[in-house]
């Protein structure tokens, strides 16, 4: 270990370890991207015998991929909507009032994402079958929304805390009812937090596999489709292309959310 003077430089070993870990973290994804273009059918031989964009065309033709993609998009959008409403209501209640169960609400909101996915998954599945509700898009959305509420809740609550409450009072003092105050004063101030939270919820839902396995019926979201392909080597490059879509569908919203909240740690919680 290097000498501990305040301006000391790190030892070579430490720097090398840091670089190695970074490479370890990033190389696998580049591999997927590379193998989306390989000419070889089984798609893992390295070095790839050749590069092509044909597989994009093949994927385009696959009806099952399209179905899965559109389902994932729909579910993610609905989830984001539900999470936005529930998360904002909860954050508003917790921020405004001092009431008995305040910490309980925070705990309750974070529980679905803190507990392992199989627990949430099987709990919801048995509850759904117990109530006799058929498995459908809506049951998937219910599952996703439950653990997505927390990302909206955290973002909106943090923004509430950063905004001076005197503005709300000033608005009411000037004659605006709470509804008008929400529309003219509160909403503009939490707009980017809402967007960021919504994006994170979208990304979380788009990528989700564990809970979805339990709460979906015959429907296939894109992750489920990929999951089913995991042990089937047929047309691997097509799977890689689907994987590219999933990467894009998770990475881009999170990047946008990160930009909007200027890189708070909330964005980091998204990667499950």
């Amino acid at each position, binding site marked *: 270990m290097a000498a501990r003077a305040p301006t000391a430089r790190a030892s070579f070993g430490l720097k090398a370890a840091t670089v190695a870990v970074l490479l370890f973290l990033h190389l696998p994804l580049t591999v997927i991207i590379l193998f989306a273009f390989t000419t070889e059918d089984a798609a893992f031989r390295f070095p790839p015998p050749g590069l092509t964009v044909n597989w994009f065309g093949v994927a385009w033709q696959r009806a099952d991929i399209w179905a899965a993609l559109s389902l994932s998009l729909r579910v993610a959008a609905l989830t984001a909507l539900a999470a936005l409403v529930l998360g904002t209501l909860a954050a508003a209640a917790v921020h405004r009032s001092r009431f008995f169960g305040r910490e309980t609400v925070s705990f309750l909101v974070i529980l679905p994402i803190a507990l392992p996915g199989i627990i949430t998954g099987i709990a919801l599945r048995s509850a759904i079958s117990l109530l006799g509700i058929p498995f459908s898009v809506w049951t998937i959305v219910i599952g996703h929304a439950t653990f997505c509420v927390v990302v909206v809740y955290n973002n909106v609550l943090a923004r509430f805390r950063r905004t001076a409450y005197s503005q709300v009072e*000033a608005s009411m003092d000037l004659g605006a009812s709470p509804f008008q105050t929400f529309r003219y004063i509160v909403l503009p101030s939490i707009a980017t937090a809402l967007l960021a939270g919504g994006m994170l919820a979208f990304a979380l839902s788009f990528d989700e596999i564990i809970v979805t396995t339990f709460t979906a019926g015959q429907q296939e979201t894109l992750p489920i489709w990929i999951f089913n392909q995991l042990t089937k080597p047929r047309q691997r490059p097509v799977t890689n292309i689907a994987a590219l879509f999933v990467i894009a569908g998770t990475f881009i919203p999170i990047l946008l959310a990160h930009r909007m909240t200027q890189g708070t740690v909330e964005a980091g919680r998204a990667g499950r």
Partner: protein
Amino acid sequence: MASGVTRPGAEPARERASTSAVRFSHVSRAFGDVQAVDDVSLDIDDGEFFSLLGPSGSGKTTCLRLIAGFDHPTAGTIELHGVEVSGVPPYERDVNTVFQDYALFPHMTVGENIAYGLMIKRVPGAEREVRGREMLELVRLPGMADRRPAQLSGGQRQRVALARALINRPRVLLLDEPLGALDLKLRQQMQVELKAIQRAVGITFIYVTHDQEEALTMSDRLAVMNNGRIDQVGTPADVYEHPATGFVAGFVGVSNLVSGETARALTGLPATFTIRPEKILIREPGASVTDGMCWADGRVRDVVYLGAHTRYWVELDAGGELVITQQNVESTSMDVLAARDRRVRLVWHRLHNRPVETMG
């Protein structure tokens, strides 16, 4: 003294119902065990500039919030122009507030901020613009309508907050330590402007501050608050010349509080009284004393030169200490500082001794 109110400086009940802008009747506000406002009764007249003066935690801001409607009293009633307002939310009261942190809406321009109240009331855009411009003229910020609050200085923001409140023509305007964040020169300038605006617009101003000089400068009447209670209500001259309690004497201006043995030695009676530092004259030891004057011998313990005047601390032979303030009419700093450790005789008119109760 009317009702159960025993505070020496509290107002006797007056026949002012017809012109009362704000009336507190035995209002209390408790937060758990803490009484932020303790049995306060108050009558503020229409059109007057009324100040609530007191140190932090004395309950003055709480009183303001009770008037605005952001808080409910735990006891007592509040009337605005004769109407009880306990169930009326802030957006239904004919009262506007200038907040301590100005609370300007950052995502709106200055013009939109000022016209906000009118916009809520669905006043058409053209009229909003005209009245907005009028307001900007009134607070001496012409042409700033398109700026954003972030681009303004503290003093400018304060004036925008004022304009935003005044444009709604409320019958009562509440101001919560609005000049606190400004430097001294700007503050003094704004005090004059606020007073002028109040006279021009003619509405009731209720002004909260901890700066006694500010309160004395601007108010028609003021209330001194201490620990949630009102110690005294009166005109600035009343409160300064005839402090009702030791607290008021000490808080409003500098004062000497003399009690016990020292009081007996100086006046023959052990009753507590206050004497203002500027009323005491410093003479040579052994100087003659005419009838009707109090006197005491002592030694100058410390001297502080304050430019326009000098402050002396004199240890009395009779025990205790008095603070004296003198204008530097002819003496220089060298002269006054040489007074340290000198023996002196203090002389003042007996009339200036103000008896007080030693509460607070």
